């Protein structure tokens, strides 16, 4: 909002340089965004917080300056040269809905000459960013900028029966507002009506029919107070944001209606040669009682940590327009009618603090309180992040929004829909982290980054009967080289096994007794045969594998892309592995290699299962796998290495032979595996 320095000077003396003034105001909560020089005027551009509509005008800002700099405030003149007859003989006001309009004041001015405003008024309006219309309309705007109260001027002769009725609109009633739009109203909306029809949308915009025109001779000035909530609902409903609604919805001054009407009337008689009729009409069915707040003497120190001297408290509050009287144990503070934001002791304390100066309150550190606790899962997440870093995965953060189409293609449950999404492509909360990961991989490939590893630890969102759930998920994306090319080696591209090895590193962090990788019941976006689900202690904790090549091609991904989705909530249930030391063996391990012919279709997992667990069998590894030439049809060759070790005693040849024989027997019986001759 723009405030002219020269206009302020009418209400308070300002000897300061504009920059110094701007600084002091900013430090008292009236944030000056910029100091502008325009047409020889100094203009302060303010960003006023929504709780301070009283400061959104020149008089209000002058009051702030008066209190900060300890200077007297001069109010604008409201002398009105009145003439007979009484205004009440020419117009009447009736408030039908006092809950939404507790006060409606008005002035009647006859014989006006509608013409352009004098230059000085036009200039001030324009410097404040308001377009000049005619001398009558301009004055309502002028007074709005000056004292902050929104008013409206009607062509009195166009008001049926010269009557103002403030009432809820009738359902379906239509009003053409000043902007030329027909508004269909309902009983939610408050209107100003004459005896016949609505003539203005109360507190938001006037109607076109009773607008001041060149032929207007007699004027009714409206100066009312409307319920902020009602104005806000109406202006939001119609999407109309006006200077008037801006102030009414934040709260105008109920005691300023006559003051503003008089100010306009007084000026009007000067700039348009009109005759102001005697008396200000003032319908005020529910007079306003000022609020009193008790400010206890110790309360300021208790909240702010410093006692502000009593005389300073009194001076500041008086300068801001508060009434203040000593009371047992403190002060009785009377809140001025324009301060709708002050209702409680703490609000009064803030007023004292901001004018006294936040700088006056020296910083100190509070004494230590209670022992701190870590976040429920922060240790776990840190562990996963460390693994990801060690494996070379760069952490990314993706938007929580995806599109309905993506949610349907990749998600496992119906996505949470947003009522007013930022974009159509972001209309649901993600039920899968795959689409954002694919987008990130795509983004990098399109920028010639052909080897990419990304990890995202975030949440998914789902709606359940019990409420909304936000399960944590870890997503990996990898493409390009798993091991880099060097001057001597060609590099190793990602394949399923490289990627699986990465994922396995994450799984080692958890306490898992039964872990298996199964190539079944996979989401359709994985490449069949090159993807798996991970089952840990009976629950599916992850999917991983290559992205379906058809899907990859449709997304213009020109190289294999690998994705893993890890459901952290399920892994967290299993708990983290807590390392426990076991004494190192003093004797060497012994190994035995088996050259086997395994029937095709038998998975390594089955070989492992057939061999079974044995406490002294410390490793069972596939050393070499091949099929073809010398291998009989329907079988593949597996070189299997078994390693045994125990803590104290070496194995004898006999023992190893017995173990080896057992393995061969088991594999033969359970899987039809033969020993290669």
């Amino acid at each position, binding site marked *: 909002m723009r405030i002219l320095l020269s206009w302020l000077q009418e209400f308070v003396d300002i000897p300061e340089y504009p920059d110094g003034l701007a600084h002091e105001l900013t430090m008292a909560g009236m944030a000056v965004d910029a100091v502008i020089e325009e047409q020889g005027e100094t203009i302060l551009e303010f960003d006023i917080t929504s709780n301070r509509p009283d400061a959104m005008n020149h008089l209000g800002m002058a009051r702030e300056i008066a209190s900060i700099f300890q200077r007297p405030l001069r109010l604008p003149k409201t002398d009105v040269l009145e003439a007979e007859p009484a205004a009440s003989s020419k117009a009447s006001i009736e408030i039908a809905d006092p809950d939404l309009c507790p006060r409606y004041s008005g002035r009647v001015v006859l014989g006006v000459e509608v013409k352009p405003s004098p230059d000085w008024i036009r200039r001030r309006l324009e410097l404040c960013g308001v377009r000049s219309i005619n001398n009558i309309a301009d004055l309502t705007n002028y007074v709005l900028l000056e004292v902050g109260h929104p008013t409206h001027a009607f062509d009195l002769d166009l008001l049926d029966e010269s009557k103002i009725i403030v009432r809820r609109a009738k359902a379906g009633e239509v009003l053409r507002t000043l902007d030329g739009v027909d508004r269909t109203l309902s009983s939610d909306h408050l209107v100003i009506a004459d005896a016949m029809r609505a003539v203005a949308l109360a507190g938001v915009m006037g109607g076109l029919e009773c607008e001041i025109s060149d032929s207007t001779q007699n004027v009714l000035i409206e100066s009312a107070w409307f319920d902020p909530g009602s104005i806000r609902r109406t202006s939001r409903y119609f999407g109309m944001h006006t200077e008037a609604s801006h102030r009414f*919805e934040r709260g105008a001054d109920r005691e300023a209606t006559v003051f503003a009407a008089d100010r306009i009337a007084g000026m009007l008689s000067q700039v348009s040669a009109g005759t102001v009729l005697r008396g200000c009409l003032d319908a005020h069915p529910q007079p306003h009682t000022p609020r009193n707040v008790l400010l206890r003497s110790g309360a300021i120190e208790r909240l702010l940590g410093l006692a502000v001297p009593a005389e300073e408290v009194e001076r500041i509050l008086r300068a801001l327009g508060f009434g203040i009287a000593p009371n047992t144990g403190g002060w009785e503070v009377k809140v001025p009618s324009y301060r709708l934001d002050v209702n409680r002791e703490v609000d009064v304390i803030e007023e004292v603090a901001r004018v006294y100066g936040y700088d006056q309150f020296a910083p100190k550190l509070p004494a230590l309180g209670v022992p701190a606790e870590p976040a429920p899962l922060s240790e776990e997440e840190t562990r996963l992040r460390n693994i990801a870093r060690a494996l070379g995965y760069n952490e990314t953060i993706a938007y929580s929004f995806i599109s309905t189409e993506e949610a349907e293609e990749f998600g496992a449950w119906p996505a949470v829909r947003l009522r007013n999404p930022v974009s159509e492509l972001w209309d649901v909360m993600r039920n899968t982290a795959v689409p*954002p990961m694919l987008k*990130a991989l795509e983004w990098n490939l399109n920028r010639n980054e052909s080897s990419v590893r990304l990890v995202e630890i975030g949440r998914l969102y789902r709606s359940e009967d019990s409420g909304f759930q936000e399960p944590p998920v870890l997503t990996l994306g990898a493409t390009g080289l798993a091991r880099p090319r060097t001057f001597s080696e060609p590099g190793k591209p990602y394949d399923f096994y490289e990627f699986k090895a990465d994922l396995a590193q994450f799984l080692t962090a958890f306490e898992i007794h039964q872990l298996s990788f199964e190539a079944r019941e996979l989401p359709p976006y994985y490449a069949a045969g090159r993807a798996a689900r991970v089952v840990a202690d009976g629950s599916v904790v992850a999917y991983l594998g290559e992205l379906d090549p058809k899907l990859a091609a449709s997304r213009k991904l020109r190289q294999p892309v690998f994705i893993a989705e890890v459901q952290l909530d399920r892994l967290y249930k299993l708990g983290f592995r807590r390392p426990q030391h076991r004494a190192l063996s003093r004797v060497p391990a012994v190994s035995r290699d088996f050259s086997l012919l395994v029937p095709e279709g038998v998975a390594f997992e089955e070989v492992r299962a057939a061999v079974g667990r044995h406490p002294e069998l410390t490793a069972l590894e596939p050393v070499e796998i091949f099929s073809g030439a010398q291998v009989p049809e329907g079988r593949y060759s597996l070189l299997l290495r078994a390693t045994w070790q125990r803590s104290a005693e070496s194995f004898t040849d006999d023992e190893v032979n017995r173990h080896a024989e057992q393995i061969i027997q088991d594999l033969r019986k359970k899987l039809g595996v033969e020993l290669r001759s």
Partner: protein
Amino acid sequence: MAIDEKTAAKLTDLLAAGESVETLYQELRSSFEAEKAAVSNQEQFKHLRDRWLGRKNGLLASTNDNWLKAAPRELKRDVGRLQNETKARLEASLAELKEKIDSSIDAGEKLDVTLPGPAREIGARHPVRMVLEEMLYIFRGLGYSVAEGPEIESFYYNFEALGFPKDHPAVDEMDTIFVTDQMLLRTHTSPIQVRIMESRKPPLRYAVAGKVYRHDAPDSTHSPMFHQLEIFAVGENVTFRDLKGTLDHFLKKFFGPDIKTRFRPSFFPFTEPSAEVDITCIFCAGRGCRICKQTGFIEVLGCGMIDPEVFRHVGYDPDRYSGFAAGIGLDRFALLKYDIDDIQILFQGDVRFLRQFR
């Protein structure tokens, strides 16, 4: 007769065949020298050493057995001397040879140490994450517990319990994204204050971070999703000065001891009094530049004393307890700290960007 055969023969037989003791030992030494000349690596060296000086089967062990022990009494003295001399000489010679071979190994395999190895690069932390971890580190040092809260939040926790008046422009200013009438994407992390206070009694200090959402079209300074860290403390005798001291400490730890902080009155529905906190511009040290719009200050966060209305909602007695709260924009801090000029780059997953934070 080769040297191996001679050493295997009894001295008496050799003498009978016309050999002399002197010549025999001379021959022994020259054979050793000849073999030694052909040795160029460790393996050959070991072989030579074992062949000649091996304790059981070495050639000198043989001459000890076959020549010295079998020597006629009158020759015993001479043979003994020659045997000892020869052994000493061979040992010295081998020691010299070993030194030569050892040093020649070092000279052998020379690498171009400037060539790169096949490093698998470690991954990068996300700058928002780095900023958060640094902040949590600072606040843990001040005794703050860490917690989390839901992102899909109720109107009650996001607005009502925080004292936002219904039908007040302050609600509009939050640019809320709604899920239903009563559920929305939290517009700030402040609802967690209420959630934690509802279930705990003072004194308490908490730091809570997470994603928050606003209905903003994405551009270089706006994002519909961003991150906040909420810190708050409640207890007896917690004052505005404690708030100032805490944030002043935090900002100096984070941006460096040379910055100055400035607290300006502001308005938030859930704090009273409220303040915006500025720091002296970290790009121009407060002299005035393009980034601070020549003011010398940049606004970094909002804070205030927790409004008694919030305490009323959680059943705390506002005459007994007071507290403060601050909301810190992690993305904004990351942009400032790392001199990033586009917030969107934080959410693109561009590895060229991310790698810089390894």
